[in-house]
Structure formats: structure tokens, C-alpha cells
């Protein structure tokens, strides 16, 4: 093990030196440009116009030969790192010459960075855990259109307008519970049961910085209206729901018996179950007149002006390939969007559930109002 680290360490040093050289060169270049009368920002503008002229839907498949795709591939991911890592490892096994550089953060933190970087793009690929952020960014013209190989098999509602983004996997908002603490007959059947005082202080959920939670609130605003959503959030806070930064904390807390119920994406239940906890899952709001399951999809897009388009395209192709989709299904219990890829054993198929119908474009246009709402009610 020592030898491996030492080796990577030296590789890193060499890499750093290379980077330093490049940096010095770029600095010099910029100084020359500045000295010749062009402000440094002109460099960025030039690049931007270049991209505009060469843009347009490129359906042309990237190079067939994986070895010929090389260089750094910068991925901004709103999916937490442990959940995307296996997929990246598999991609790297296929494209050994690509050096993946990952920046993980919350969807909107990275979205902010992408907007900030429009004139000076840093990322090649953006991955999020829901569709509203990626659709908002598409409207901000952050992305480069691309139709990945196999996109024609993905259900059209999971493809962005003008091929700006591609859906990857579906996930469902569910309630997980600790079987040691909650008996079958007292289970909540609806998201709105979570405001029942009998659960006071017994519920964990993710807070306002979490992409999936933001998306759920955006969906609810569309389904039941601003007023009712606000009322629901106030009631959750009044019911002393504990809001964590992410869902891993939620599932672990419910698994450990710290809380009886947790509001999570479905796969957190399966991950916790796999760790040996005695937990159960509720697919809420299935009754007549209820809103149905709130679903969303992870998605990916290519950043306009990114430095490594071939690698970015190869990566998107990989994400919706049978192998990539299988990894999401197997490693993370998600619902693949590519038809024919089997669910992981034990995962409840979605057929037969009432699913809430949410208009992605409308929700993304209203996303600011969702942030306003969360801020107004003081969601932690």
C-alpha cells in the first residue's frame, strides 16, 4: 500500500510542475495580451464567441476508440461524491487516458459557480440530483447541446429542450422508518401526516441547502400551491423536525433509532437496510385525491466552452449506456431511465404507483420563488 501512495505522490508532483509551467505560460500570455492593449477579459470573450459559432447540435458520435480520448475532464457534481465515484471509476477503466477532476458540492452552489464562470468556463460536465437546477442553467445558456448515444431510448420527458441536458436516473421521495420504534399500524401514509403532533421531535429530514429537498418543495408548490406548501413547512418546523445537511445523516439517524421517521430519497432506505438496520419504507400519498409520489431525476449536461468536449461527450454517453445505468441501479438502488436495465433485486418497481405530475420547465422558472419560500419560513 505504501508503494502505491508513494508512486501517486510523485506522479502528483510531476503533475503539479506541469501545471505550474502551464500556469506561468498562461500568465505570461495574458500579460502580453494586456500589454498589447487588450484587457485580460478579452481573452474570455473571444473564447465565448468562438464557441457560439461552432455550436449547434452535434450528433456526431465521439471517437470510437476510447484510448484516443484523453486529458483532464472536470466534473462538477451535485450528487455526493461517494454516490458518483463508482461510476467515475468504471468510466476511467474504459477511458484510461482521461484524468477526472471532481468538484462535489450542492446543486445550487455549483450552479452559482457555473453562472459566475460563463465567461471563463472551468467545468466540462455538470451533474445534478434534480431537474430544476439543470433546466434553470439551460435557460441561462450555460450548456452545450449534445445528444448522447442511446438518448433516443430515454423517455422524452427526461431530455432537456434543445438537447441541453439528459436525465440519468429516477428517484422517489419516500418516508423511511425505524421498525424497532414504529409499528406497522401507526405508519404515516402521506407527507402531510408528518405534521401530526404524535411525531413531534421524531422526524429527520434534509434542510434547505439540499437539492432533493429544494426540488421537493418546488414540486409541492406546483402540486398544492404556495399557501399550502408554506403551511406544511411551518407545521414541520413546529413539529420539531430535525433538518440535516444531507440525507446520509438522516438515514443513519433513523437507522440508529435517533429518529422514528426520515424524509428521504428511496435509495437511502435501501442503503441503510444494506447496512443491517431494521428499517422500513413508505411510498406516501397513494390514496384517491392525494398528490402521489414526488419523483425527480438526476441529470447531466455538457458545459459550454469546456476544455475537453470529446471526454465530456464520452462521459455522457457512458452515463446512459447499459453499463453506466446498471451501476446506478446496482450501486445506488436507483431507477435507471434506459429501458431494459434491471432494477437491483429488492427494489420496489414504480409500476402501479400514483406518480405526481410536475412540469419541469415551469418549476425551474419558479425556482426563485421556492428559495423565497424556504427563506421566509426559515427552513434551516
Amino acid at each position, binding site marked *: 500500500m505504501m508503494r502505491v501512495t508513494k508512486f501517486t505522490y510523485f506522479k502528483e508532483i510531476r503533475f503539479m510542475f506541469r501545471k505550474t509551467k502551464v500556469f506561468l505560460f498562461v500568465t505570461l500570455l495574458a500579460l502580453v495580451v494586456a500589454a498589447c492593449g487588450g484587457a485580460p477579459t478579452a481573452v474570455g470573450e473571444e473564447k465565448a464567441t468562438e464557441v457560439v459559432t461552432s455550436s449547434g447540435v452535434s450528433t456526431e458520435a465521439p471517437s470510437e476508440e476510447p484510448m484516443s480520448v484523453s486529458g483532464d475532464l472536470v466534473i462538477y457534481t451535485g450528487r455526493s461524491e461517494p454516490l458518483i465515484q463508482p461510476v467515475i471509476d468504471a468510466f476511467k477503466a474504459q477511458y484510461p487516458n482521461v484524468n477526472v477532476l471532481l468538484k462535489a458540492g450542492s446543486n445550487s452552489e455549483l450552479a452559482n459557480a457555473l453562472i*459566475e464562470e460563463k465567461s471563463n468556463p472551468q467545468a466540462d460536465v455538470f451533474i445534478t440530483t434534480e431537474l430544476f437546477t439543470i433546466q434553470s442553467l439551460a435557460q441561462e445558456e450555460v450548456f452545450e447541446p449534445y445528444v448522447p448515444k442511446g438518448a433516443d431510448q430515454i423517455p422524452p420527458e427526461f431530455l432537456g429542450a434543445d438537447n441541453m441536458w439528459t436525465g440519468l436516473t429516477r428517484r422517489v421521495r419516500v418516508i423511511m422508518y425505524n421498525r424497532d420504534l414504529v409499528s406497522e399500524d401507526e405508519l404515516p401514509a402521506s407527507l402531510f401526516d408528518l405534521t401530526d403532533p404524535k411525531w413531534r421531535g421524531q422526524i429527520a429530514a434534509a434542510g434547505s441547502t439540499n437539492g432533493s429537498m429544494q426540488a421537493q418543495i418546488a414540486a409541492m408548490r406546483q402540486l398544492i400551491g404556495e399557501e399550502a406548501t408554506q403551511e406544511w413547512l411551518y407545521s414541520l418546523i413546529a413539529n420539531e423536525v430535525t433538518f440535516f445537511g444531507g440525507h446520509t445523516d438522516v438515514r443513519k439517524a433513523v437507522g440508529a433509532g435517533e429518529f422514528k421517521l426520515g424524509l428521504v430519497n428511496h435509495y437511502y432506505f435501501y442503503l441503510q437496510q444494506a447496512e443491517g438496520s431494521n428499517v422500513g419504507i413508505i411510498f406516501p400519498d397513494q390514496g384517491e385525491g392525494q398528490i402521489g409520489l414526488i419523483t425527480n431525476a438526476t441529470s447531466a449536461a455538457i458545459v459550454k466552452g469546456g476544455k475537453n468536449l470529446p471526454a465530456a461527450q464520452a462521459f455522457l454517453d457512458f452515463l446512459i449506456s447499459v453499463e453506466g445505468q446498471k451501476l446506478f441501479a446496482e450501486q445506488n438502488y436507483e431507477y435507471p431511465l434506459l429501458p431494459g436495465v434491471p432494477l437491483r433485486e429488492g427494489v420496489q418497481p414504480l409500476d402501479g404507483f400514483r406518480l405526481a405530475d410536475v412540469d419541469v420547465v415551469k418549476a425551474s422558472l419558479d425556482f426563485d420563488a421556492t428559495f423565497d419560500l424556504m427563506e421566509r419560513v426559515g427552513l434551516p
Partner: protein
Amino acid sequence: MSISPRLAVAAGLVALFVAIPLVYIFIRAMGAEPEAWQRLLQTRLWKLLSNTLLLVVAVTSGALLTGVSMAWLTERTDLPGKKIFRWMLAMPLAVPAYIGGIVHLALLRPRGGVIPQFLESVFGQPVPTPSPLGFWGAAFILTLFMYPYVYLLSGAAFRTLHASLEEAARVFGRTPMQTLFHVTLPALRPGLTAGALLVALDILAEYGTVALLRYETFSSAIFVQLSGRYDRSAASVLSGILVALAIVILWGELRLQGQARFTQMESAWRPAPLVTLDRWRVPAFLLVLGVVSASLLVPFTVLLIWSIEAFLDPQAMTVLFRTGSQGFGSYVWNSLWSTSAAAVIAVALSLPVALLAVRYPSRFSRFISRLCQVGYAIPGVVIALSLVLLVNRFLPFLYATPFVVVIAYVLRHMPQAVRASESALNQLSPSLEEASRTLGRTSLQTLIQVTLPLILPGLLAGGSLVFLTSLKELPATLLLRPAGFDTLAVRVWVWAGEGFYLQAAPAALLLVLASALPLSFLLRREQIFK
């Protein structure tokens, strides 16, 4: 001596470099739409303000109480084992508060923590335990990792304080308690206010611990704003207010420091007699042991156990030792080179400022020196925000390079370098430099051949301080790091944030050990170890 124009220009440029992010954030805050101000005023602002101030007051008082009592017990009493305690009480400075928080949270988390679960398995039913979450938890844990500032400064003061002052009070019939409160503590005041100031400013800047323990302050709210709506004006507004708050505290300290002067004659110094604790020996010993355990022994032991578990767990191992930019070696390397670079740059930049302030004291040089110390008052998240906006707009080729991270470290920790360089220069007699000039050396030659070699130990101390504090800097690194550039602090935060404590532990342990090294160098220098 007339002021050297080259030096004045150099120092002025340094001050400009330091001031730009500060000025820029104020401009952005003022330029924010009235809507952003209004929304904040109506909703969050007052809550955030009271939350933040409450925590500052609680932790500062907690740190004063703990720091002074620990210093008194180890310097002025016959406490058993005080030599080793003296050292152990200072070491928590090497433990970033968020790492301490992670450990205490894992141990004490209500119902889910190790201790509550253990108690439940012993007693067969849940036993209520104190929660590390929320205001009291945050105040407690931050106190545990902040008191060493006060402890070190008051410990030094206790050591150098004249015995005769206290003896005089006793002769005039004061009880030991009255002497402590009426003579000793007031004489310690300069050290105490300096310590309290460091604590208060650190709390304002604190992000990791409060976010972890779910207590919202300005710093964490700015972070939340940055990961919320696509609009940075609200974050700028909050940053502007936060910096204003910090400047008020900094100014308050200057005022307090300025009012009182204590003069001691060096010649008649002798150590104060030790207080015998008698029947208080055991309780006092247990108290100190408790503080040392909670702030040093327990976190260290837990991290060690987790690290060993991680090394025994093949899954954790593969996560830890990936190849390329995601390998453990690369985090270590990134941490070390970026903080070392920051230390070298900060010390180099502090030189003209310190030279000007010490060798050519004037209103101008004092102003420059003060300006270079505002870094104390600008929390990491604010520096990061202003650098993101500034660099991307004006120096786009620098954007998203590790160098921006280094610049943030330099800006944030410059004050330590300036103070260290100034104190080193103060101890060097100008006559040496004058002699060198008389012998025909130019001022630059004098600087390189005479001044620098002589003040090198002082510069090294300043550099160590910058290294130590940059190594644990979290919010600036999180916001500014380019993709693929992770440091130990970031890895600890990401892994622990996902609840993967085993994976986080080796990085956390290494971070603590890497901080302990320069810290022991500094402590030895200050003669805490004898």
C-alpha cells in the same frame, strides 16, 4: 532617518493588496438591490445577529474562564503533574474545532451517539445525556478548542508578573481572593483582552463547527446563501455586515489596550510563591484532567481508533487510497504546498510593512500596519466570496487555480505574519543596521546580509503561525478550490459530512499531527516547555 520611498511604496502596495477584497465586498454590499436588503432585514438579519453575538459572548466568556483558571492552576499552584498539563493544555490549538466537533458529535449525539447507546444498553432504557447540538453544544465545543488562546496569553502573564505586586496587596490585608480579583487579574488585562479578541474574531469566522452543530451564525448563513438562489447580493450584504461587526470588535480591543499601561521593573523580578491547594488538590487535578481530556485526549484517541479501523477495513482503504488527484497522497501534498506557499508569501509581504512600522514610525506607517491586520476581521467565507467575484472579473486566467486558494490564506492570515515580523524587528537594535550602512553596504544588502539572518527565528515563528492556521482553513478552501484540488481539511469535511467517519479519520489525524509540529516549535520558542 528619513523614510525610504522604495520601502513606503512596497508597504503601500501590500496594504492595497490586503484592502482590495475588503473594499470590494463593501461595494458589492452597498450595490445590492434594496430588495435583497429588505428581504434580509425582514427575515433573517436580526435572528442571525443575535445568534452570532450570543455565541461570541458565550464562547469568549467560557474561554476566559477556562483559560485563566487553567493558567492559574498550572502556573501558580502546586497542582500535581502541572509540567505535562502546561503542554497538554496548549495542544488543542492543533485540533481544528470542527474536527473536535465531529468527534464529540459522534460520541454524544442524542440517542445515536456512542455514549447514549452505551448507556442505553447498560440500563436497558434511554438515559438523557447533554446534546452537543444547538447553542449550548456549539458554545461548549468551541470553548473547548478556543480557550488555549487565553490560556497561553494569561499563562505567559502569570509567569512574568511581579510577585511584589501581589505581596503588597497581601501586606495591606487583602485576602488571597481579593488579591486575585483586584491586583492579579487587572494586571493580566492586556493579555486577556488580546486572547478574548482572538477568540471573538475566530467565532465570527467559524463555519465548520457551527454548521456541523446546526447553529446558524453569519458565517454559516453566508454559506447557505451561496448554495441557495442564483444571486450573490444577499451573501454580499451579510458579508458586509459581518466584516463591520468584526471591525467594531477589533477597534474595541485597540481602545481597551490603549487605556491601561502596566510597567514592571525588570531588575527585581522573582517568581511568585506557589499557592498550596491542600484539600482542593484532587478536585483541581480532576478539573484540569477533564479539560485536557475533552479537548485533546478524547478527540485524539477517537481519531486514532477510527484510523486504525479504517486501515483494517478494505473498503475504507480503497476509498482512501485512490490514484491520481483523488489519492490520499495528493490531499496531503496539496495541503502542505499550499499552506507552505501561503506562509512564505505572507512572511515576505509582512517584511516591508514591519520594516516601515518599526524603523520609521509615523502616522502613515502605523496606518499601513493596522490595515494589514484587518485579515483577522475578514472571515474565510467573505474572503472567498470577494476573491471569486474579483478574480473571475479582473484576473480570469487566475480563476480556479490553486493560487487563488493560496491568496486567500495569505489575506486571511497576514496579521500573524505582520505581528511576528514586527516583534522580531523590535528586538533587533537598529545600530547593527546603521553599522552595516556606515561600512558601505546598500540598504538592500544590509537587509539581506544583516537584518534577515538576525530576525530569521522570528520570521520562522510568523510563518509557522500562518502555516498552522491556513492548514485548517475550511470555508475559503471549500469555495475556492478548483476541481480536483482537495486538501486534508476539505476531505475531512466532505467525508464526515456524509457520515463516513472512518474515511475522515486518517486525514483528520494527519491534520492534527501536521499542526502539532509547528505548534510545538512555537511553544518551545515561547518557553512553554522547559
